[in-house]
């Protein structure tokens, strides 16, 4: 058995073999080489896709450099979100304060780019040098007549999840403004889809076909004016629940909008996401349309999936992703391919999430919270896994061990949501697992009992 860091011993479980009371929702252990990022990262990824806003990072350059054009979040119009703006604080600013620099940066950038709103992200040292960001934002907002919203995302003030929360708070301040423009009868908001590789468009089209309009997608292909009227939708449909449930709760409290949690990955979860919205409006026609859509799409994709399944049946997988809802869907999606999940974990899962994960996973599946390369590689080797699903940071672990890899992170360029996304996902898995290259990998040969 693996020798875990003492403080992490309750963050790793073998399903239904160990007594299950997983520890999660805690800060990563110092020196553990966590795959998580920081509070700032959480805020930045959530707000990033809002395409007509100015995103200004208040701090030294690093935080801005690493998040320039980082997500595959597409826009159907403006692309201001793909620029990286930073106050680029220097030593004198750290000593004397960065408020003036922030003010000047905001004024000059707003004049140059005409954004509909501006988000100002605080980084670590801004929290230390005591800049009054709120005051600067208020001042600029009054002068330039656009919302200028501080995002309190100092890296050390919690985990990535706290960054999600700060982003939700920032978004919430934008809601409740537009009570004039027309909002259709059957209308929803999509929360927590980021339009990676155009996924929000796929989902919006499904709802449209059912007769349901999306008032605002938060934040995929996002626009400030849409967020301003989001409070007038009838239902909030939360996908990436780890990041956006907090906003849904705030909106429920203030505007009385109910919310449901869904996932657009995999057949069951996606179908349920469509049915559940249809059922919410309590009209038979909507439910019939959902059924028709699901039936039609399934008849198209099933034969394709069956082909992939015939080649993948019996293979074993490991999943390590940011959010736990995605992990649920992936466990189920892999079953359609006849693949068994041996290891599964997330960076930000909650206690409830892990309880559910335990329910849907087989006995013996290893469940991990906030894992690291040493643990992950150990479990992959121990279980003889054929496929790892993760992000860029996990990819070299898979390849060094001579196993297949599927990128399910926010940089992806291929849509994996929706029915067509399910086929793409299967093809991604298939084209990596069945590649002829593995037989040259020493680790693969060792696993198969051959000579290295």
């Amino acid at each position, binding site marked *: 058995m693996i020798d875990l860091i003492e403080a992490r011993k309750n963050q790793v479980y073998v399903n239904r073999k160990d007594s299950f009371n997983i520890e999660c929702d805690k800060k990563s*252990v110092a020196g553990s080489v966590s795959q998580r990022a920081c509070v700032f990262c959480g805020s930045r990824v959530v707000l990033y896709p809002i395409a007509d806003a100015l995103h200004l990072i208040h*701090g030294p350059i690093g935080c801005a450099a690493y998040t320039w054009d980082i997500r595959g979040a597409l826009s159907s119009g403006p692309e201001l979100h793909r620029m990286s703006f930073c106050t680029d604080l220097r030593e004198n600013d750290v000593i004397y304060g960065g408020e003036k620099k922030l003010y000047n*940066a905001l004024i000059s950038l707003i004049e140059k780019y005409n954004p509909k709103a501006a988000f100002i992200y605080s980084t670590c040292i801004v929290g230390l040098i005591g800049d009054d960001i709120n005051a600067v934002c208020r001042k600029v907002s009054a002068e330039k007549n656009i919302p200028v919203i501080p995002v309190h995302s100092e890296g*050390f003030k919690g985990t990535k999840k706290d960054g999600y929360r700060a982003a939700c708070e920032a978004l919430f301040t934008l809601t409740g403004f537009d009570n004039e423009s027309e909002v259709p009868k059957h209308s929803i908001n999509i929360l927590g889809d980021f339009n990676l590789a155009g996924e929000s468009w796929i989902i919006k089209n499904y709802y449209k076909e059912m007769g349901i309009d999306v008032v605002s997608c938060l934040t995929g292909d996002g626009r400030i004016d849409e967020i301003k009227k989001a409070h007038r939708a009838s239902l909030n449909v939360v996908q990436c629940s780890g990041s956006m449930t907090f906003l849904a709760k705030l909106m429920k409290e203030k505007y009385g909008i109910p919310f449901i949690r869904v996932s657009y990955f995999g057949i069951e979860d996606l179908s349920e996401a469509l049915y559940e919205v249809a059922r919410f409006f309590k009209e038979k026609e909507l439910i019939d349309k959902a059924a028709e859509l699901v039936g039609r799409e399934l008849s198209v994709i099933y034969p394709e999936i069956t082909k992939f399944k015939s080649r993948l049946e019996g293979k074993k997988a490991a999943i390590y992703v940011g959010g736990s809802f995605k992990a649920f869907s992936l466990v189920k999606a892999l079953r359609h391919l006849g693949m068994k999940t041996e290891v599964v974990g997330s960076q930000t899962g909650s206690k409830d999430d892990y309880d559910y994960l335990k329910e849907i996973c087989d006995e013996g599946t290893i469940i991990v919270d906030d894992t690291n390369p040493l643990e992950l590689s150990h479990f992959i080797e121990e279980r003889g896994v054929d496929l790892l699903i993760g992000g860029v940071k996990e990819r070299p672990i898979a390849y060094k061990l001579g196993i297949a890899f599927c990128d399910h992170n926010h940089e992806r360029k291929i849509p994996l949501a929706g029915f067509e996304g399910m086929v793409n996902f299967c093809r991604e898995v298939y084209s990596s697992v069945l590649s002829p290259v593995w037989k040259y990998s020493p680790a693969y040969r060792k696993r198969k009992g051959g000579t290295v």
Partner: protein
Amino acid sequence: MKAPEKVIEKIADPARNTCRLCAPLGASTVFRGIENCIPLLHGSQGCSTYIRRYMISHFREPVDIASSNFSESAAVFGGRENLHTALDNVIGKYQPSLVGIATTCLSETIGDDVSLYIREYNEKNKSEVPIVNVPTPSYKGIHTDGYRDAVISCIKTVSKDNETGDFINIIPSFVSPEDLRHLKEIASDFETEAVLFPDYSETLDGESWDSYRKISPGGTQLNDIARMKSAKASIVIGSSLSRSGLSGSLSEHLTNAHFMNLPIGIDLCDEFFAAFEKATGKPLPEKYSAERNRLVDSYMDAHKYFFEKRAIIAGDEDLVVSLASFMSEIGIVPVICATGSDNPEAVKLIKKYAPDAEVMADSDYATVLDKARGMNCDLVIGSSKAFYLSKNLSIPLVRVGFPVHDRFGSQRIKHLCYRGTQSILDNIANAIIEHKQNSSNIGYSYL
């Protein structure tokens, strides 16, 4: 007499699509070039994760960088406890030969005394694992500064004074793993014993494994770093390495050091090999004069593609300096030379090689783009980040340096010496030809 200039306090413009990366990235790269070393960043979790992701996307190798993972209370009361826990865990789990600590904006701003924390740790735990500490606040320097300061800190901490030995040091600035392999090959062809530091040629461009390695194999051995001060000569390439920074300067620790620019282009390569001959006392191996002459031959063959073509060079200062020199040799006019570094010496050097160029120091890509519009530029040479220029100006990009995360084989880009120059020359010529071919309706099949 000129009146003294009035000092006007100008507030700097915000960075728009930055040319700079942060100092801990440079330091981490150096630490990855030491055998069995694990880098540890003293700050927030995000610093190490972002840097890991960035480096992995370029090198396509595992890059483990630990973090002391500050909490709010650590930011208030100091990061001692976090650093000690982090050291316990990385030493326990990775069993490293060396831990390389780089600070971050956060730990520097609160004034953590990392050297003191390390002494306390060693005393308390009777730990014998050497620990190097390098200050890398990114409000004071960029990745190339962090790189240099880490090199200096390692030599300062690990190397001992000894009698002069019969070997040389080769200390390159931030180049590719392929370049590092080439430098080793050159030393070997000169039949000279050399310590190459840092050496991430294997750790960041490694082989396929039969089982998972906690720390990628390869790197400069600790006992080699320990003897660097006693080398009979040192070849230090990359002008950023010649300057002093937060860890002092390299020249304090080396005797008979040849500080020079990255060897790109005939002139700079000739200077480099002359220094090599002087440092080793051995003549240039025939193989390299042949490479040189083939390169000269290709200068003749390709000169018409290049003459008076207008180029933008953007990237790390060392690369910009040497590319400016090389481009001028082949008849390309560098019209804009841009770098994120704000160092006046770099500006002077660039101006020396590209006197007509608009030199933009401490710059960013959006400012470069504003400047470049209307300047009729023909090509860009720079990292993947310069694709922003290439796309907006509809001109080709020749990818060099770091990061290159929109193409394959970034670890194996050749930059240095006659061979690297040859490769860059071929790529520039082909980029120009391809652009002409693709933007013509004629369908040229000979060009």
